[in-house]
Every structure is written in C-alpha cells, then in structure tokens.
C-alpha cells in the first residue's frame, strides 16, 4: 500500500458537497472525556473546529479560596486524574515556594520516584488511548495492563490508586512501606521488554504511521504562540523541559540526576535509544512525533525512577512530615509551573497572611494544548480529527478545573 497521502482537495474531485455542522461530543469516546467539538465540514474536509469546554467545571480556584493549602491538596488530584501525584507535586511546591520551605534529601528523591512513575502511567494511557482512537484495540489493553501495576504500587504506598494525595505540602504523607522499593524495581525490570512490544504495535505499524505522519503538523512558532507545553511542545522540536529549565525550587529536585530532554530540535532524536528510527514520511511537529516523544519519555522516566531509588536508599535521615493543617501563610504571592506529564502545570497562590489563601490559581497545560486545535484542524479530513486530538493527550478534568 502506498504511504503517500492524498490531499483533501483531490479526494473529492468532482463531488458536489454542502457545508454541514457536525457536533462531536461531549460524550464521543475519542474526545477523552467531555469535550465537545463543533465541526464545520464540507464533505470529508473540516473547515473549522470550535471546541466547547466547561462540562467538568467545578471552579477549583474558588474551592481553593475556602480551604487551607493542605485541605485543597486532594482537589488537585481531581485535575489531571491520570497523574494525580504530579498535580500534588505542583501544588505542594507552589505553597513551599511561598513558605520558603525546603524538603530533605530523602523526601526529594522519594518525590522524584513517585512523580516519574506517574509520568509513565500518564504516558501509557496516552499511547494506549491513542491506539484506540485510531482503531487499534490491543495497545490499549497492553498499556493499561502495565499502568495497572503502577496503580498497584500506589495502592501499596498510600491506599489510593488514582487520587493519591501522596505528596503533600512540606513533605509526603508517609514513608514507603517495607519492600516497596523492591517491588518498584521488579516492576521496572518486567516493564522494560514490554516497551518493545508497544513500539512494534504502534510506532512501527504502517497503519499507525499512515494515520499520524504529517497529520496536525505544528510549527515551533505556533506551539510557542499558543503556549503549548510538554510533549506537544517538544514534539515540535522545542528543546524545553521545566525539569531542566524551570525555577530553582523545582529543578533542585532533579539535582544530581543524569538525564536529558527528549526533543529533536534538528529533527533528529538522540541515537542512544534502541527503538525504531523515525519513519521518513513523518514531519517534525506532526502527531507521530508527539506520540514518539512520550514513548521516549517513558524510558527516560524509568531511568529516573531507578536513579531515584538508588539515591533514596543512600540518603540519610527521614522523609519530611507535612506542615500543620492550619499553618498561617506568609503574606505574598507565588506562582510556579512544573513539568507534569501533559505539559506545564501552573499553580498560583496569593496570601493575605491567614491560613486560607486569598486567591488560588490553577493554570492547566491541556487547556493551552487544546486551544491550538482550531488552528491545527483547518482543512483536515474528519477522520484526522481524532488523530490530532488524541496526539495532544488531553484530560478534561484539568482543562475544566
């Protein structure tokens, strides 16, 4: 089968079509939650896409104005519920930034371990669901099988699987149980060969490449202009990752770790991974690249977890206890973005000196990543819409807040 794609204009030569409005969602399975898209189509070609959001809106920011930071923490789990721990981390660090609080070495390494595990879990869901969006069921089952093991690890750690609230302001809720680190290592060992299977199922799959290569191409400039972050930004070849480029309170967490940002500024990824080469039909910034960046980040995160386990075992002392539930906050403002799996998740806090913040701000990464869709989806085929939306890896709990 030829891998050359026909241009939408030539697909429908000679066929007279009328303009039509199609409502996609809010319960369409490929929209990853309650996202509603209104498509203005002309035959198979989409001329305009208008996203409508807010179906999951809970006004998390208003809730935050009525609770102390530690009481608000469980609400952050419900933002990006596929990577709850990364949300906890963002909020905890923001409040710690306001407090000027530094955590111990041991806490820092433990945070790296659980945060990177949540990145793996989130990227696995992204890859699996992306396969499902494009009509392939197996990757979904296989990635969810592996993700389940991470959720089991979380359950051992804190009793919850999705809404962990494990990282809290000032530290973590409790130290790891006996033997947990060993289980964690065992998981990584058995997970490693599975990644090859996933690459065989999707990355190198001719159908997958046809459906994603050259679809939804986003230039560096567009990605930055719309504030896209995370794998969406790096998939466009921008070498930017807050774990390296963020504010000191966040980057300090990764001090002493060896790793590098997964991006291909010149269209070429680092050669030190054993995974398939980039297919020639892909274009930097297309859906395939966004997917591939996530897959490489999974491997990167596994390595970070391994390093974290080693460093955690060597660190002396105890992990930190959380701050008092109703601790008075200093007067001031702090805003911090962290590199959550889906992009830069920002939390802000304005305090008037009482234990309850005056204003809480939650800036969602998926919100910005979604805002680019009207631009990306112009002139594509209807069938390409799920391919583009899926490649952005949205989670509506975070967009609607």
């Amino acid at each position, binding site marked *: 089968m030829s891998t050359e794609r026909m241009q939408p204009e030539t697909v429908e030569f000679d066929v007279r079509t009328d303009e039509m409005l199609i409502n996609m969602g809010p319960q369409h399975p490929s929209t990853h939650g309650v996202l509603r898209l209104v498509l203005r189509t002309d035959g198979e070609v989409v001329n305009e896409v208008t996203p409508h*959001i*807010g179906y999951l809106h809970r006004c998390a920011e208003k809730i935050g104005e009525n609770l102390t930071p530690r009481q608000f923490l469980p609400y952050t789990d419900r933002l990006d519920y596929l990577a709850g721990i990364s949300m906890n981390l963002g909020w905890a660090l923001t409040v710690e930034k306001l407090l000027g609080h530094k955590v111990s070495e041991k806490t820092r390494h433990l945070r790296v371990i659980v945060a990177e595990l949540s990145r793996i879990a989130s990227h696995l869901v992204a890859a699996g669901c992306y396969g499902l969006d494009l009509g392939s069921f197996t990757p979904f089952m296989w990635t969810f099988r592996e993700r389940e093991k991470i959720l089991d690890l979380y359950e051992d750690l804190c009793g919850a699987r999705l809404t962990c609230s494990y990282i809290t302001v000032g530290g973590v809720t409790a130290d790891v149980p006996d033997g947990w680190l060993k289980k964690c290592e065992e998981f990584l060992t058995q997970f490693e060969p599975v990644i090859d299977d996933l690459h065989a199922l999707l990355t190198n799959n001719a159908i997958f490449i046809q459906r994603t290569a050259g679809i939804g191409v986003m230039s560096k400039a567009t990605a930055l202009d719309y504030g896209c972050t995370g794998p969406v930004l790096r998939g466009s070849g921008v070498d930017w990752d807050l774990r390296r480029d963020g504010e000191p309170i966040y980057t300090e967490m990764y001090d002493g770790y060896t790793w590098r940002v997964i991006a291909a500024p010149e269209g070429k990824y680092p050669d030190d991974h054993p995974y398939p080469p980039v297919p020639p039909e892909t274009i930097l910034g297309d859906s395939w690249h966004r997917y591939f960046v996530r897959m490489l980040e999974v491997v990167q995160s596994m390595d970070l977890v391994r390093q974290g386990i080693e460093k955690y075992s060597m660190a002396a002392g105890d992990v930190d206890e959380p701050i008092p539930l109703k601790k008075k906050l200093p007067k001031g*403002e702090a805003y911090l973005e962290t590199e959550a799996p889906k992009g*830069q998740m*920002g939390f802000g806090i304005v305090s008037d000196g009482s234990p309850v913040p005056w204003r809480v701000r939650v800036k969602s990464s998926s919100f910005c990543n979604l805002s680019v869709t009207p631009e990306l989806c112009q002139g594509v085929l209807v069938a390409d819409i799920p391919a583009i939306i899926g490649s952005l890896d949205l989670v509506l709990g975070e967009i609607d807040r």
Partner: protein
Amino acid sequence: MIPQAIYEKLLHPFRPWLLAQDFAAIDPWIEVRADGLPEICRVLRDDPDLAFDMLNCITAVDYFEPDEKKAAAAEWQPHLELQYHLTSTVHRHRIVLKSRLARWQNNEIGQLPEAPSVSSVWSTAEWHEREVFDLMGVLFVGHRDLRRILCPEDWAGHPLRKDYQMPVEYHGIQAR
C-alpha cells in the same frame, strides 16, 4: 536577564506607563498602566534581548472584602489586578506584569471594567482572556471572540469575584 535589567529596558520607551515594581518579591513583578499593555507586551516579545516568547498564564485577583469591618482594616482600596506570567525560552528569564483595574467601570456596579487584549501578541491570551472574562468579569477590548469559556453562556455573574452570589436556580436546577 535579571528583572532589574528587564525593567530598565522597558523604562526608556514606556516610563509613564510603568507604575511600580518589586524585584525582591518571590516572583519579581512590574506594574504597568492597563492602556499600555499591548505595546509593552509587543516589545517584551519582539526585543531580541527580552524575547518573551511564551505567555504562561493570565490571571486576575479580586481585592474586595464583603465584610465591612474587615474591609476597613484592609490595606488596599477595592480593585482588580491582572497578572501576566511571562517566560522566555530563549534567555530563560521570567517576569510578571501586573495591572490594576477598577472593579466596575466608572464605579457603576454591573459595568465590567475594560482592559486591552494582548491576544494579538500571544495566541495563548485568546483562551486565557476568555477565562478571566468568564470567571472574573473583565472585558478585553480587541479580543475577537470574547465569550464565556468554562461557565455556560447564559450564566449570571462572575464566580471568582469576592462578592459573587451563586444563583438560586439555573434552568430549573436548584443551585444552592
């Protein structure tokens, strides 16, 4: 570039528009007059030494205390504050722009205050300004499609305002 240098770079063309600054704050900020926002932002983005190519977030804070006793003790007069968090991926520096607005235009309750839109500078602002309009009630002049984004289009009021009252019912649904 350190915040001081960023400020000095802006000082020459925009001196009358720069109202206050604090470089010792946790997040260093510069307060500007709202009517100068688009021009200042354009310079922040286009000047090669500044190159703020990423707008992280637009947010607004409502300084208003409904309780009269507490309001008398407050250090501020009621107002709204817009905050723009900017990052340069080129130079890796950050700055916060702030701008004060009246809570109501011309002090007429119900008249939303206006601020110029920066969506022509960064497209990120398009959705963020819609969000601020929706939740905080600021009209962004020059925005091409300013409508509610998170709340339903026929929702009444702006929920993040401190004097916001939840409607009693919405389309037959009891809301409080």
